[in-house]
């Protein structure tokens, strides 16, 4: 248990996953006589997320990181193991318990367009969490949604547009705004910036960091890209084939990776000569930097 020694005194974990396991049973074609096969996507995974911190779950395709996210978000039933949120066991939560959990835990998905209903206006999308949870909308639909739009840096006049009328980065901001609608304590980001162009990705990352600073929630940040994770996370857990192979504070994982797989992952990331960076930044300073305003493509 990472941090148990140093942290038990100052705060109990917000989320605690213990021995989470997910097995999928697939039945081959052939009706009642078809053969079953079992595939373990997540295998006894344990971790904690503390208040105000960001835990990154990193792995390549097939590592089980997204399944883990769905288990923790209660979008999928775990085959085995327990999930505790703020001290309550929510593994089999239903009804009001589940509703309370949904009010505390929100998800931002990978594909900004796929995660927004193409038939709903932004206003409807942003107020949906409150509507679905049967909560009153403070200040009315329009004002509430408009405020959320502003918080994520979008024009509140565009409330009546549909998702298809926004760029990828803007759509992802809407997805983030929706997660904020209920004032969550934990936001699960499932590859939330992977589908975006680098320049947009950087802006969305900035937004995520700013929101955390303002509101103080925790992130469970799922990503395949170690480099992305480095900017945002306090602790990192590396997954491979359904198992966490290494976890620890961010700096430590990057500087002193213990597991050979983590080392392979780090070594595989293409690098840019640091000398080039140094020269570029010196040059930029001399020219009193005309930084391009990072506008998103329409």
């Amino acid at each position, binding site marked *: 248990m990472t941090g148990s020694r140093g942290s038990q005194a100052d705060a109990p974990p917000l989320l605690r996953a213990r021995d989470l396991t997910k097995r999928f049973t697939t039945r081959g074609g052939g009706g009642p006589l078809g053969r079953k096969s079992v595939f373990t996507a997540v295998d006894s995974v344990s971790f904690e997320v503390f208040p105000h911190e960001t835990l990154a779950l990193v792995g390549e395709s097939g590592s089980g990181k997204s399944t883990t996210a769905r288990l923790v978000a209660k979008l999928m039933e775990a085959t085995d193991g327990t999930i505790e949120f703020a001290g309550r066991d929510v593994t089999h939560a239903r009804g009001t318990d589940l509703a309370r959990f949904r009010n505390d835990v929100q998800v931002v998905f990978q*594909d900004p367009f796929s*995660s927004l209903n*193409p038939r709903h206006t932004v206003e409807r999308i942003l107020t949906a*969490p409150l509507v679905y949870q049967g909560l009153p909308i403070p200040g009315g639909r329009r004002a509430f949604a408009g405020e959320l739009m502003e918080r994520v840096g979008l024009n509140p006049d565009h409330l009546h547009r549909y998702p298809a*009328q926004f760029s990828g980065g803007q759509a992802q901001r809407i997805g983030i705004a929706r997660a904020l609608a209920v004032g969550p304590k934990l936001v699960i980001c499932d590859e939330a910036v992977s589908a975006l162009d680098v320049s947009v990705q950087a802006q969305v990352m900035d937004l995520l960091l700013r929101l955390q600073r303002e509101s103080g929630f925790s992130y469970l940040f799922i990503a395949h890209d170690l480099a992305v994770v480095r900017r945002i996370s306090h602790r990192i857990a590396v997954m491979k084939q359904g198992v966490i192979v290494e976890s620890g504070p961010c700096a430590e994982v990057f500087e002193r990776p213990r597991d050979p797989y983590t080392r392979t992952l780090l070594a595989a990331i293409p690098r840019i000569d640091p000398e080039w960076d140094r020269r570029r930044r010196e040059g930029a300073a001399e020219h009193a930097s005309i930084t391009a305003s990072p506008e998103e493509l329409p």
Partner: protein
Amino acid sequence: MATTTLHEAQPSLPSPPTGAAPPGGTARRVLRELRRDIGAVLSTAFLVLIVLMALFAPLIGTLAGHGPDTFDSAAVDKDLGGLPKGSLGGISGDHWLGVEPQNGRDILVRIAYGARISMLIAVSATLLTTVIGVVLGLLAGFYGRWVDQVISRLMDFLMAFPALIFMIAVLSALPAGNRPVLLVIVLSVFGWPYLARVVRGQTLTLTGREFVEAARASGAGSRALIFAEILPNLRSTIIVMTTLAVPGYIGTEAGLSFLGVGVTPPTASWGQMIANSVSWYQVDPMYFVIPGAFLFGTVLALTVVGDRLRHALDAGEAS
């Protein structure tokens, strides 16, 4: 979906549009596109004519001065075995589309009343099919597992059934009673799986889409997921499939009436008129040509509209 019985077995329809068209002016864009298409415009005009004829059938009867069952012995030639007087099946100022041989009933008025019954049955059957097909398709696709198993097996069963033979057998065995209602029920029972299968497939895809998961994570219950999140995305599929179902049912109803198990006389029906014309078509081809042309024209017009509608909706998705 109901083209099934039209062509004896079950020729499969070309697949309907997948996924969702971007909303926001979709309707306006589709309309604009349809208005540019000559085929769609002509077809719509023809359909409007048929619908007006059906709606105002009694008025047409009054204007023409003949009821649907009024015999006009003056218009047929008793000496020639009851052949209509005059050329082209007795077309005249009095009978615009001629008369039936033997009894001299006015064909135009009967066509109008026939349109009424055709439209009524086809539209009712389509509505019923749509409700059953969409609901069961949604349930099967959304819940999966045993719900899907039960519904899918039921669909397999109904689609393996020789629907035409069975419909004829059931209809002929059943007491005459209220034929139109029976027809609607029988058509719908065998018609819904074709829509449900498509809806199920799309629901399956949509359920896997992240916005459904996102709604679930937002706290949406199953009913909200199905009806508020998934159903709106099936809109174009349902529109296209239902538009194409109507001509199928019109054809099937006419076919059943043609075989003598549909609407019972003296109620006018296109299929029946065609069936009656069989024994006359060597001497009075117009008796066959007119109802045949109306039937063909209506089915074709509806098919063209459905086809162009799909095109327009598809194009919206591509952009």
